[in-house]
């Protein structure tokens, strides 16, 4: 907690928060990281295998095999979300399923399923990007900033 916020707390509140903090079970960070590493690694290995299949049997080059690979991973992720399996896998693997494209697909599919009851326009259509929206906004914005930096470096005679 930022110290600025802590200043506003009364002594009783500070004392209580100390006690509550001591009583709170710690989040198993190390275990979570190991699980994320394993799960994320497995997903990426599957992705690699799919890409290899597209290159070997699908007349794709190494450059353009990425798109169909991502599409297949998205489809798997959406199906697992629909069948209600994904959230259980995610509780175990955490960032392992959230960081790859599977997490992005899950965030959109789960929101679309959840808000189906509010109809296709105000529900599915409007709420689908409830979670994924900020990924898109800040993803596009960061890409824009990175490109600006690259152009600047080039203009100044860099690589």
């Amino acid at each position: 907690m930022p110290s600025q916020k802590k200043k506003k707390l009364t002594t009783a509140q500070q004392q209580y928060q100390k006690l509550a903090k001591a009583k709170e079970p710690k989040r198993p960070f190390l275990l979570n990281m190991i699980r994320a590493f394993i799960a994320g690694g497995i997903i990426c290995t599957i992705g690699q295998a799919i890409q290899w299949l597209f290159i070997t049997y699908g007349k794709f080059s190494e450059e353009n095999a990425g798109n169909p690979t991502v599409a297949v991973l998205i489809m798997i992720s959406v199906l697992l979300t629909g069948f209600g399996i994904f959230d259980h896998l995610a509780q175990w693997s955490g960032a392992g399923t959230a960081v790859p494209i599977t997490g992005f697909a899950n965030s959109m599919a789960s929101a679309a399923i959840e808000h189906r009851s509010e109809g296709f326009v105000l529900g599915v259509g409007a709420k689908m990007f409830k979670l994924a929206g900020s990924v898109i906004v800040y993803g596009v914005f960061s890409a824009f900033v990175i490109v600006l930096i690259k152009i600047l470096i080039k203009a100044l005679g860099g690589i």
Partner: protein
Amino acid sequence: MLQGHQTWVFNSMPVIRASAAVGGPFEAEGALHDDFDRLNADIWMGQDSFEKAEKKLLEQACDLAIQQAAMKKADVQFFIGGDLMDQIISSSFAARTLGVPYLGIYGACSSSMEGLALASLLIESGFAQNVLTATSSHNGAAEKQYRYPTEYGSQKPPTAQWTVTGAGAAILGREGTGPHVVAATIGKVVDMGLSDPLNMGGAMAPAAVDTIEAHFRDLQRSPSYYDLIVTGDLGRVGHGIATDLLTQHGIKFSANQFNDCGLMIYQKEQPVFAGGSGCACSATVTYGHLLKRMKKGELHRILVVATGALLSPLSYQQKESIPGVAHAVAIEM
């Protein structure tokens, strides 16, 4: 009659003429499944949304309570209901079906005992002969409103709690047989500045401690008066904190005398993190399990302290801390 600062003593001893608890499939696998009056296999209750399913659960509990009291809807003068949904739609829509004069309340998960206390007040004052009070919660509906879509893959920390899918209802009357409501302590809102919505037990524990202390102070009682004191849904984390705080303040319990509905309702193997939560947590455990034990003669005097976290999805996004409240109701056989 008001005694002390914030405790009502009901001299007319309102009777809980009947009560009912209903649950969903996850509660059917829980530790108290025998004490539910009906367990539904379908989390959707045959409806097309979680919100409609919750309303169904509430209607089911109300109908069962009215049936068990051998009454008709027309015999109930008032219905006091509350739930977790925005604008308490579950209660209001169930009240539409019931067609009984209705008072909607909101105390988050403390609504169960807030409703019971107010219902007792109506009986005590003579403004009603029979009052129905009920609350409900639904895991899917609560997750959707307060957190993420149910199928979203977020990793929950060990402090998180599992919202109970179910509903509890009770009918209070001036006459009849059954356990009596003898006193109620209305809690004040306590905020210790915690702001993690995935640790609500920790945020609500100080409110529970405040109300329990007020109850004993107002009535000049000690914990030994009760066979059992239960908090609503503090879970493992909050209940541990509350026990520590009360012990520090000189309130000591005998073994197994102080428990939490959120710790009682599920089996150890069920993946509920720190325990159960939701309006239905204290409502189903009290109106199902505890009242049945009282009728069997296993318990004579109990104090139910329902705890509520008064946050909204908007308030925590705006970085507000989580205020808590707790209402205690003493029931004697």
